[in-house]
Protein backbone atom coordinates (compact mmCIF):
# COMPACT_ATOMS: atom_id res chain seq x y z
CA UNK A 1 0.00 0.00 0.00
CA UNK A 2 1.31 3.44 -0.86
CA UNK A 3 1.32 6.01 1.88
CA UNK A 4 -0.19 8.80 -0.17
CA UNK A 5 -2.95 10.41 1.95
CA UNK A 6 -6.58 10.65 0.79
CA UNK A 7 -8.59 13.37 2.52
CA UNK A 8 -12.34 13.86 2.55
CA UNK A 9 -11.89 17.45 1.43
CA UNK A 10 -15.55 18.40 1.16
CA UNK A 11 -19.14 17.18 0.87
CA UNK A 12 -22.40 18.28 -0.73
CA UNK A 13 -25.79 16.67 -0.17
CA UNK A 14 -29.32 16.95 -1.56
CA UNK A 15 -32.12 15.20 0.29
CA UNK A 16 -33.11 12.71 1.30
CA UNK A 17 -36.64 13.96 0.61
CA UNK A 18 -39.69 11.86 -0.15
CA UNK A 19 -40.12 13.28 -3.64
CA UNK A 20 -37.83 15.90 -5.11
CA UNK A 21 -39.74 17.65 -7.91
CA UNK A 22 -36.52 18.54 -9.70
CA UNK A 23 -34.77 16.59 -12.42
CA UNK A 24 -31.86 14.30 -11.53
CA UNK A 25 -29.58 16.77 -13.33
CA UNK A 26 -30.75 19.66 -11.13
CA UNK A 27 -30.37 17.62 -7.95
CA UNK A 28 -26.88 16.47 -8.87
CA UNK A 29 -25.85 20.02 -9.82
CA UNK A 30 -26.77 21.30 -6.37
CA UNK A 31 -24.92 18.48 -4.59
CA UNK A 32 -21.79 18.98 -6.71
CA UNK A 33 -21.80 22.76 -6.22
CA UNK A 34 -22.19 22.16 -2.49
CA UNK A 35 -19.15 19.89 -2.39
CA UNK A 36 -16.95 22.26 -4.42
CA UNK A 37 -18.02 25.17 -2.24
CA UNK A 38 -17.26 23.20 0.90
CA UNK A 39 -13.66 22.80 -0.28
CA UNK A 40 -13.52 26.24 -1.86
CA UNK A 41 -12.51 25.00 -5.32
CA UNK A 42 -13.88 24.91 -8.86
CA UNK A 43 -14.10 22.14 -11.43
CA UNK A 44 -10.65 23.15 -12.66
CA UNK A 45 -9.23 21.64 -9.47
CA UNK A 46 -10.90 18.27 -10.12
CA UNK A 47 -8.82 15.72 -12.07
CA UNK A 48 -11.36 12.94 -12.43
CA UNK A 49 -14.90 11.96 -11.50
CA UNK A 50 -16.40 8.70 -10.28
CA UNK A 51 -20.18 8.50 -10.43
CA UNK A 52 -22.55 5.93 -8.96
CA UNK A 53 -25.98 5.34 -10.47
CA UNK A 54 -28.17 2.44 -11.56
CA UNK A 55 -29.78 2.57 -15.02
CA UNK A 56 -33.01 0.86 -14.11
CA UNK A 57 -33.66 3.26 -11.22
CA UNK A 58 -33.21 6.28 -13.49
CA UNK A 59 -35.07 4.68 -16.41
CA UNK A 60 -32.16 5.57 -18.66
CA UNK A 61 -29.58 3.57 -20.60
CA UNK A 62 -26.09 4.53 -19.41
CA UNK A 63 -27.67 6.92 -16.93
CA UNK A 64 -24.42 8.78 -16.32
CA UNK A 65 -24.72 10.32 -19.80
CA UNK A 66 -27.38 12.65 -18.42
CA UNK A 67 -25.14 14.04 -15.68
CA UNK A 68 -21.81 14.40 -17.52
CA UNK A 69 -22.05 18.20 -17.64
CA UNK A 70 -23.20 18.81 -14.08
CA UNK A 71 -20.54 16.54 -12.57
CA UNK A 72 -17.92 18.40 -14.63
CA UNK A 73 -16.93 15.38 -16.73
CA UNK A 74 -16.81 17.07 -20.14
CA UNK A 75 -13.37 16.27 -21.65
CA UNK A 76 -12.37 14.68 -18.35
CA UNK A 77 -12.00 11.11 -17.06
CA UNK A 78 -15.16 9.68 -15.51
CA UNK A 79 -15.61 6.16 -14.21
CA UNK A 80 -19.13 5.08 -13.40
CA UNK A 81 -19.77 2.37 -10.84
CA UNK A 82 -23.23 0.81 -10.87
CA UNK A 83 -23.50 0.04 -7.15
CA UNK A 84 -23.71 1.89 -3.84
CA UNK A 85 -21.77 5.16 -3.80
CA UNK A 86 -19.35 3.76 -1.22
CA UNK A 87 -17.95 1.49 -3.95
CA UNK A 88 -17.42 4.60 -6.09
CA UNK A 89 -15.63 6.29 -3.19
CA UNK A 90 -13.37 3.27 -2.75
CA UNK A 91 -12.55 3.37 -6.45
CA UNK A 92 -11.82 7.10 -6.25
CA UNK A 93 -9.45 6.48 -3.34
CA UNK A 94 -7.71 3.80 -5.43
CA UNK A 95 -7.28 6.29 -8.26
CA UNK A 96 -5.60 8.73 -5.89
CA UNK A 97 -3.45 6.07 -4.21
CA UNK A 98 -2.35 4.94 -7.67
CA UNK A 99 -1.02 8.43 -8.34
CA UNK A 100 -3.19 8.78 -11.44
CA UNK A 101 -5.05 11.78 -10.00
CA UNK A 102 -4.70 14.16 -7.07
CA UNK A 103 -8.34 15.14 -6.64
CA UNK A 104 -11.40 13.06 -7.51
CA UNK A 105 -15.06 14.03 -7.27
CA UNK A 106 -17.41 11.21 -6.22
CA UNK A 107 -21.12 11.63 -7.08
CA UNK A 108 -24.08 9.34 -6.40
CA UNK A 109 -27.75 9.91 -7.19
CA UNK A 110 -31.13 8.15 -7.26
CA UNK A 111 -34.80 9.09 -7.41
CA UNK A 112 -36.81 6.13 -6.13
CA UNK A 113 -39.94 8.30 -6.40
CA UNK A 114 -39.75 7.69 -10.19
CA UNK A 115 -40.93 4.07 -10.03
CA UNK A 116 -41.71 1.33 -7.47
CA UNK A 117 -38.27 0.43 -6.14
CA UNK A 118 -38.98 -3.18 -5.17
CA UNK A 119 -40.47 -3.94 -8.60
CA UNK A 120 -37.39 -2.57 -10.31
CA UNK A 121 -35.06 -4.52 -8.05
CA UNK A 122 -36.66 -7.82 -9.10
CA UNK A 123 -34.54 -7.28 -12.24
CA UNK A 124 -31.44 -7.65 -10.06
CA UNK A 125 -32.49 -11.16 -9.03
CA UNK A 126 -31.42 -14.40 -10.77
CA UNK A 127 -33.90 -14.56 -13.70
CA UNK A 128 -33.91 -18.37 -13.82
CA UNK A 129 -34.54 -19.40 -10.21
CA UNK A 130 -35.62 -16.29 -8.28
CA UNK A 131 -37.10 -13.44 -10.32
CA UNK A 132 -39.93 -15.58 -11.76
CA UNK A 133 -41.05 -16.37 -8.20
CA UNK A 134 -41.39 -12.65 -7.46
CA UNK A 135 -38.40 -12.49 -5.13
CA UNK A 136 -37.22 -8.92 -4.52
CA UNK A 137 -34.94 -7.21 -1.99
CA UNK A 138 -37.77 -6.91 0.54
CA UNK A 139 -38.43 -10.66 0.36
CA UNK A 140 -34.78 -11.33 1.15
CA UNK A 141 -34.80 -8.82 4.02
CA UNK A 142 -37.89 -10.51 5.51
CA UNK A 143 -36.30 -13.96 5.25
CA UNK A 144 -33.14 -12.67 6.88
CA UNK A 145 -35.05 -10.95 9.69
CA UNK A 146 -37.18 -14.02 10.38
CA UNK A 147 -34.12 -16.26 10.57
CA UNK A 148 -32.86 -13.95 13.32
CA UNK A 149 -36.20 -13.57 15.09
CA UNK A 150 -36.99 -17.29 15.11
CA UNK A 151 -34.76 -18.12 18.08
CA UNK A 152 -35.07 -14.74 19.76
CA UNK A 153 -38.40 -13.96 21.44
CA UNK A 154 -37.41 -10.39 22.23
CA UNK A 155 -36.24 -9.47 18.75
CA UNK A 156 -39.29 -7.62 17.46
CA UNK A 157 -39.61 -5.46 20.60
CA UNK A 158 -35.89 -4.70 20.49
CA UNK A 159 -36.02 -3.78 16.79
CA UNK A 160 -38.96 -1.49 17.34
CA UNK A 161 -37.06 0.23 20.13
CA UNK A 162 -33.98 0.54 17.97
CA UNK A 163 -35.90 2.05 15.04
CA UNK A 164 -37.65 4.40 17.47
CA UNK A 165 -34.37 5.44 19.09
CA UNK A 166 -32.81 6.23 15.72
CA UNK A 167 -35.65 8.61 14.88
CA UNK A 168 -35.88 10.21 18.30
CA UNK A 169 -35.49 13.96 18.10
CA UNK A 170 -36.09 14.04 14.34
CA UNK A 171 -39.28 15.06 12.50
CA UNK A 172 -39.86 11.34 11.89
CA UNK A 173 -39.93 10.53 15.64
CA UNK A 174 -42.17 7.56 16.49
CA UNK A 175 -42.65 5.35 19.53
CA UNK A 176 -41.79 1.66 19.67
CA UNK A 177 -45.46 0.87 20.32
CA UNK A 178 -46.49 2.75 17.20
CA UNK A 179 -43.87 0.87 15.22
CA UNK A 180 -45.17 -2.47 16.50
CA UNK A 181 -48.69 -1.42 15.57
CA UNK A 182 -47.73 -0.55 12.00
CA UNK A 183 -48.64 -3.03 9.24
CA UNK A 184 -46.44 -6.00 8.32
CA UNK A 185 -44.60 -5.48 5.02
CA UNK A 186 -42.53 -8.68 5.06
CA UNK A 187 -42.98 -10.55 8.31
CA UNK A 188 -41.56 -9.93 10.84
CA UNK A 189 -40.68 -6.51 9.39
CA UNK A 190 -43.24 -3.76 9.86
CA UNK A 191 -43.69 -0.63 7.78
CA UNK A 192 -42.31 1.72 10.42
CA UNK A 193 -39.22 -0.42 11.00
CA UNK A 194 -38.04 0.21 7.45
CA UNK A 195 -35.89 3.10 6.35
CA UNK A 196 -38.12 5.35 4.22
CA UNK A 197 -37.16 5.34 0.53
CA UNK A 198 -36.40 8.90 -0.57
CA UNK A 199 -34.77 10.92 -3.38
CA UNK A 200 -31.29 12.34 -3.06
CA UNK A 201 -27.83 13.03 -4.37
CA UNK A 202 -24.44 13.21 -2.73
CA UNK A 203 -21.06 14.55 -3.82
CA UNK A 204 -17.71 14.17 -2.07
CA UNK A 205 -14.30 15.57 -2.98
CA UNK A 206 -11.46 13.13 -2.25
CA UNK A 207 -7.97 14.58 -2.52
CA UNK A 208 -4.34 13.91 -1.76
CA UNK A 209 -3.54 17.62 -1.77
CA UNK A 210 -6.67 19.50 -0.62
CA UNK A 211 -7.95 19.36 2.93
CA UNK A 212 -4.70 18.55 4.70
CA UNK A 213 -4.25 22.02 6.15
CA UNK A 214 -7.89 22.30 7.15
CA UNK A 215 -7.57 19.16 9.28
CA UNK A 216 -10.03 17.24 7.12
CA UNK A 217 -10.47 13.53 7.88
CA UNK A 218 -8.30 11.04 6.08
CA UNK A 219 -9.23 7.69 4.53
CA UNK A 220 -7.07 5.03 6.17
CA UNK A 221 -8.80 1.85 5.14
CA UNK A 222 -11.20 0.50 2.53
CA UNK A 223 -12.80 -2.88 1.91
CA UNK A 224 -15.58 -4.33 -0.20
CA UNK A 225 -17.09 -7.73 -0.92
CA UNK A 226 -19.68 -9.65 -2.91
CA UNK A 227 -21.52 -12.47 -1.10
CA UNK A 228 -23.32 -15.34 -2.89
CA UNK A 229 -26.42 -14.03 -4.68
CA UNK A 230 -28.98 -16.57 -3.45
CA UNK A 231 -29.88 -16.15 0.22
CA UNK A 232 -30.10 -19.96 0.40
CA UNK A 233 -26.36 -20.08 -0.22
CA UNK A 234 -25.61 -17.70 2.65
CA UNK A 235 -25.89 -18.03 6.43
CA UNK A 236 -28.99 -15.87 6.78
CA UNK A 237 -28.19 -14.65 10.29
CA UNK A 238 -24.66 -13.37 9.58
CA UNK A 239 -23.28 -10.72 7.24
CA UNK A 240 -20.16 -12.70 6.24
CA UNK A 241 -19.61 -10.38 3.29
CA UNK A 242 -19.38 -7.40 5.62
CA UNK A 243 -17.02 -9.34 7.89
CA UNK A 244 -14.73 -9.88 4.92
CA UNK A 245 -15.03 -6.25 3.77
CA UNK A 246 -14.25 -4.97 7.28
CA UNK A 247 -11.32 -7.32 7.75
CA UNK A 248 -9.82 -6.06 4.50
CA UNK A 249 -10.27 -2.46 5.63
CA UNK A 250 -8.89 -3.18 9.11
CA UNK A 251 -5.85 -4.80 7.53
CA UNK A 252 -5.22 -1.74 5.35
CA UNK A 253 -5.70 0.62 8.33
CA UNK A 254 -3.66 -1.52 10.70
CA UNK A 255 -6.54 -2.01 13.14
CA UNK A 256 -6.16 -5.11 15.34
CA UNK A 257 -9.01 -4.57 17.74
CA UNK A 258 -12.12 -3.11 16.11
CA UNK A 259 -14.04 -3.41 19.39
CA UNK A 260 -12.15 -0.42 20.75
CA UNK A 261 -11.11 1.26 17.51
CA UNK A 262 -14.05 3.46 16.56
CA UNK A 263 -15.70 6.51 18.09
CA UNK A 264 -18.40 6.51 15.43
CA UNK A 265 -20.05 4.09 13.02
CA UNK A 266 -22.35 5.22 10.21
CA UNK A 267 -23.89 2.04 8.78
CA UNK A 268 -26.23 1.81 5.78
CA UNK A 269 -28.93 -0.18 7.51
CA UNK A 270 -32.45 -0.29 6.10
CA UNK A 271 -33.94 -2.31 8.96
CA UNK A 272 -33.09 -2.67 12.64
CA UNK A 273 -31.99 -6.29 12.24
CA UNK A 274 -29.44 -5.09 9.70
CA UNK A 275 -27.93 -2.80 12.32
CA UNK A 276 -27.51 -5.81 14.61
CA UNK A 277 -25.90 -7.70 11.72
CA UNK A 278 -23.65 -4.71 11.09
CA UNK A 279 -22.48 -4.38 14.69
CA UNK A 280 -21.70 -8.10 14.88
CA UNK A 281 -19.92 -8.30 11.51
CA UNK A 282 -17.89 -5.13 12.02
CA UNK A 283 -16.98 -6.24 15.54
CA UNK A 284 -17.46 -2.75 16.98
CA UNK A 285 -17.84 -2.31 20.72
CA UNK A 286 -20.20 -0.44 23.07
CA UNK A 287 -18.03 2.66 23.05
CA UNK A 288 -18.78 3.23 19.37
CA UNK A 289 -21.67 5.62 18.76
CA UNK A 290 -23.88 4.30 15.96
CA UNK A 291 -25.83 6.61 13.63
CA UNK A 292 -26.15 9.61 15.99
CA UNK A 293 -28.23 11.46 13.40
CA UNK A 294 -30.58 8.54 12.85
CA UNK A 295 -28.75 7.02 9.88
CA UNK A 296 -30.94 5.81 7.04
CA UNK A 297 -33.92 5.46 9.37
CA UNK A 298 -34.65 9.13 8.80
CA UNK A 299 -34.36 8.80 5.01
CA UNK A 300 -32.73 6.33 2.65
CA UNK A 301 -31.69 7.01 -0.92
CA UNK A 302 -30.51 3.85 -2.66
CA UNK A 303 -27.11 4.21 -4.37
CA UNK A 304 -26.50 7.44 -2.42
CA UNK A 305 -26.70 5.82 1.04
CA UNK A 306 -23.06 4.85 1.48
CA UNK A 307 -21.79 8.21 0.31
CA UNK A 308 -24.22 10.00 2.63
CA UNK A 309 -22.87 7.89 5.52
CA UNK A 310 -19.34 8.86 4.53
CA UNK A 311 -20.34 12.52 4.51
CA UNK A 312 -22.05 12.15 7.90
CA UNK A 313 -18.89 10.58 9.34
CA UNK A 314 -16.65 13.31 7.95
CA UNK A 315 -19.00 16.00 9.18
CA UNK A 316 -19.04 14.53 12.72
CA UNK A 317 -15.24 14.54 12.78
CA UNK A 318 -15.08 18.14 11.68
CA UNK A 319 -17.52 19.21 14.38
CA UNK A 320 -16.41 17.07 17.30
CA UNK A 321 -12.73 16.99 18.19
CA UNK A 322 -13.40 13.89 20.29
CA UNK A 323 -14.41 11.87 17.25
CA UNK A 324 -11.08 10.47 16.08
CA UNK A 325 -11.93 7.39 14.05
CA UNK A 326 -15.09 6.36 12.19
CA UNK A 327 -16.40 3.44 10.16
CA UNK A 328 -18.70 4.36 7.24
CA UNK A 329 -20.64 1.69 5.39
CA UNK A 330 -22.57 1.13 2.19
CA UNK A 331 -24.42 -1.92 0.88
CA UNK A 332 -26.31 -2.99 -2.23
CA UNK A 333 -28.21 -5.98 -3.56
CA UNK A 334 -30.55 -8.44 -1.81
CA UNK A 335 -30.01 -8.63 1.97
CA UNK A 336 -26.65 -6.87 1.76
CA UNK A 337 -25.07 -9.03 -0.97
CA UNK A 338 -22.66 -6.23 -1.83
CA UNK A 339 -20.79 -4.60 1.06
CA UNK A 340 -18.32 -1.73 1.21
CA UNK A 341 -16.68 0.14 4.09
CA UNK A 342 -14.29 3.02 4.55
CA UNK A 343 -12.32 3.96 7.68
CA UNK A 344 -11.80 7.65 8.42
CA UNK A 345 -9.34 9.17 10.87
CA UNK A 346 -9.58 12.74 12.06
CA UNK A 347 -7.03 15.26 10.86
CA UNK A 348 -4.65 17.15 13.09
CA UNK A 349 -6.75 18.87 15.79
Amino acid at each position, binding site marked *: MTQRPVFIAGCGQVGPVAEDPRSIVEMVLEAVEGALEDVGITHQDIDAIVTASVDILDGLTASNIAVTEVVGAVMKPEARIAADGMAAAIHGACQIWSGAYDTVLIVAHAKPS*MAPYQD*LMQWAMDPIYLQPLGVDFLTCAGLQAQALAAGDAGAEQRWAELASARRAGTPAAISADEILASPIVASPLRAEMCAPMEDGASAIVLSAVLGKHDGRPQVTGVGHDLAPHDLGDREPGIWRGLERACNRAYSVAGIDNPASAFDLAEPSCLFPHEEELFVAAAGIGNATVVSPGGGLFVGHTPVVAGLSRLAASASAMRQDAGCRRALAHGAWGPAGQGQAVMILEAGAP
Partner: protein
Amino acid sequence: MSETVTVTIEMEQAWRYASGTAMERFSEGLKERRIEAVSCRLCGRAYLPPRPYCGKCNIRMSSWTPVKDEGELVAWTVMQLPMLDGRTGEMREAPYGMGLILLDGADTTLNHYLAESDPAKLAIGQRVRAVWCNERRGAMDDILHFEVIR
Protein backbone atom coordinates in the same frame (compact mmCIF):
# COMPACT_ATOMS: atom_id res chain seq x y z
CA MET B 1 -26.71 -31.92 -27.18
CA SER B 2 -29.03 -31.86 -24.20
CA GLU B 3 -32.08 -29.61 -24.14
CA THR B 4 -31.44 -25.94 -23.51
CA VAL B 5 -34.15 -24.05 -21.66
CA THR B 6 -34.93 -20.34 -21.78
CA VAL B 7 -37.01 -18.24 -19.41
CA THR B 8 -38.97 -15.30 -20.79
CA ILE B 9 -39.76 -12.33 -18.54
CA GLU B 10 -41.66 -9.30 -19.75
CA MET B 11 -40.48 -5.93 -18.50
CA GLU B 12 -43.51 -3.71 -18.16
CA GLN B 13 -42.37 -0.66 -16.34
CA ALA B 14 -43.23 2.99 -16.05
CA TRP B 15 -41.08 5.82 -14.75
CA ARG B 16 -42.11 9.33 -13.73
CA TYR B 17 -39.47 11.59 -15.22
CA ALA B 18 -39.02 15.17 -13.97
CA SER B 19 -38.21 17.57 -16.77
CA GLY B 20 -36.34 20.21 -14.80
CA THR B 21 -37.35 23.86 -15.06
CA ALA B 22 -35.52 24.62 -18.32
CA MET B 23 -37.08 21.72 -20.18
CA GLU B 24 -40.47 22.55 -18.67
CA ARG B 25 -40.38 26.06 -20.13
CA PHE B 26 -39.18 24.67 -23.47
CA SER B 27 -41.93 22.04 -23.54
CA GLU B 28 -44.64 24.56 -22.69
CA GLY B 29 -43.34 26.67 -25.58
CA LEU B 30 -43.70 23.80 -28.03
CA LYS B 31 -47.45 23.81 -27.43
CA GLU B 32 -47.46 27.30 -28.96
CA ARG B 33 -44.95 26.40 -31.68
CA ARG B 34 -42.28 28.34 -29.83
CA ILE B 35 -38.68 27.08 -29.66
CA GLU B 36 -36.28 28.59 -27.15
CA ALA B 37 -32.67 27.79 -26.33
CA VAL B 38 -30.67 28.58 -23.20
CA SER B 39 -27.41 30.39 -23.79
CA CYS B 40 -24.17 30.54 -21.86
CA ARG B 41 -22.91 33.97 -20.92
CA LEU B 42 -19.29 32.83 -21.13
CA CYS B 43 -19.03 30.87 -24.38
CA GLY B 44 -22.18 32.32 -25.91
CA ARG B 45 -23.45 28.96 -27.16
CA ALA B 46 -27.25 28.72 -27.41
CA TYR B 47 -28.12 25.19 -26.28
CA LEU B 48 -30.83 22.86 -27.45
CA PRO B 49 -32.10 21.07 -25.51
CA PRO B 50 -32.15 23.83 -22.92
CA ARG B 51 -30.47 22.83 -19.68
CA PRO B 52 -29.33 24.42 -16.43
CA TYR B 53 -25.58 24.19 -16.91
CA CYS B 54 -22.92 24.71 -19.59
CA GLY B 55 -20.62 21.71 -19.42
CA LYS B 56 -17.91 23.46 -21.43
CA CYS B 57 -17.65 26.49 -19.12
CA ASN B 58 -18.87 24.83 -15.90
CA ILE B 59 -21.36 27.56 -15.16
CA ARG B 60 -25.10 27.82 -14.60
CA MET B 61 -27.16 29.25 -17.44
CA SER B 62 -30.40 31.21 -17.22
CA SER B 63 -30.58 33.37 -20.33
CA TRP B 64 -33.16 32.42 -22.97
CA THR B 65 -32.74 32.91 -26.71
CA PRO B 66 -35.52 32.61 -29.28
CA VAL B 67 -34.87 30.05 -32.00
CA LYS B 68 -36.67 29.78 -35.35
CA ASP B 69 -38.48 26.63 -36.39
CA GLU B 70 -36.40 26.54 -39.54
CA GLY B 71 -32.72 26.09 -40.16
CA GLU B 72 -30.03 24.17 -41.96
CA LEU B 73 -29.72 20.45 -42.47
CA VAL B 74 -26.18 19.69 -41.29
CA ALA B 75 -26.37 15.88 -41.44
CA TRP B 76 -28.84 13.39 -42.85
CA THR B 77 -29.54 9.71 -43.31
CA VAL B 78 -32.36 7.60 -44.65
CA MET B 79 -33.14 4.67 -42.41
CA GLN B 80 -33.85 1.52 -44.40
CA LEU B 81 -34.66 -0.64 -41.39
CA PRO B 82 -37.87 -0.49 -39.39
CA MET B 83 -36.97 0.94 -35.97
CA LEU B 84 -38.80 1.27 -32.69
CA ASP B 85 -40.86 4.47 -32.72
CA GLY B 86 -40.60 6.07 -29.31
CA ARG B 87 -43.88 7.91 -29.90
CA THR B 88 -46.05 4.89 -30.56
CA GLY B 89 -43.99 2.01 -29.17
CA GLU B 90 -44.54 0.32 -32.56
CA MET B 91 -42.01 -0.21 -35.30
CA ARG B 92 -41.65 2.74 -37.63
CA GLU B 93 -41.76 1.56 -41.23
CA ALA B 94 -38.74 2.22 -43.44
CA PRO B 95 -37.62 4.13 -45.39
CA TYR B 96 -37.67 7.39 -43.46
CA GLY B 97 -35.32 10.34 -43.31
CA MET B 98 -33.48 11.55 -40.21
CA GLY B 99 -31.52 14.76 -39.88
CA LEU B 100 -29.39 16.87 -37.60
CA ILE B 101 -30.82 20.36 -37.90
CA LEU B 102 -29.14 23.60 -36.89
CA LEU B 103 -32.09 25.85 -36.21
CA ASP B 104 -31.60 29.56 -36.83
CA GLY B 105 -30.49 31.04 -33.51
CA ALA B 106 -29.20 27.80 -31.95
CA ASP B 107 -25.62 26.56 -31.72
CA THR B 108 -26.32 22.90 -31.13
CA THR B 109 -28.25 20.65 -33.49
CA LEU B 110 -31.57 18.95 -33.12
CA ASN B 111 -32.14 15.39 -34.34
CA HIS B 112 -35.52 14.75 -35.92
CA TYR B 113 -37.40 13.03 -38.70
CA LEU B 114 -37.34 14.37 -42.25
CA ALA B 115 -40.36 14.44 -44.55
CA GLU B 116 -38.10 13.47 -47.43
CA SER B 117 -37.00 9.84 -47.61
CA ASP B 118 -35.34 9.84 -51.04
CA PRO B 119 -31.56 10.00 -50.53
CA ALA B 120 -31.14 11.62 -53.94
CA LYS B 121 -33.14 14.63 -52.78
CA LEU B 122 -31.29 15.23 -49.50
CA ALA B 123 -28.09 17.23 -49.12
CA ILE B 124 -26.12 18.86 -46.35
CA GLY B 125 -26.75 22.59 -46.32
CA GLN B 126 -30.42 22.39 -47.37
CA ARG B 127 -32.87 24.71 -45.62
CA VAL B 128 -35.55 22.86 -43.65
CA ARG B 129 -38.56 23.89 -41.57
CA ALA B 130 -40.63 22.21 -38.89
CA VAL B 131 -44.02 20.74 -39.74
CA TRP B 132 -46.07 21.02 -36.56
CA CYS B 133 -48.83 18.70 -35.42
CA ASN B 134 -52.24 20.26 -34.94
CA GLU B 135 -52.68 18.64 -31.53
CA ARG B 136 -49.65 19.47 -29.40
CA ARG B 137 -48.81 18.05 -25.97
CA GLY B 138 -45.59 19.94 -25.21
CA ALA B 139 -43.09 17.36 -26.43
CA MET B 140 -40.59 16.94 -29.24
CA ASP B 141 -43.07 14.94 -31.26
CA ASP B 142 -45.27 18.04 -31.50
CA ILE B 143 -43.07 18.49 -34.55
CA LEU B 144 -44.11 15.79 -37.01
CA HIS B 145 -40.94 16.15 -39.06
CA PHE B 146 -38.88 18.72 -40.95
CA GLU B 147 -39.47 19.44 -44.63
CA VAL B 148 -37.01 20.76 -47.16
CA ILE B 149 -37.76 24.34 -48.22
CA ARG B 150 -37.69 24.23 -52.02
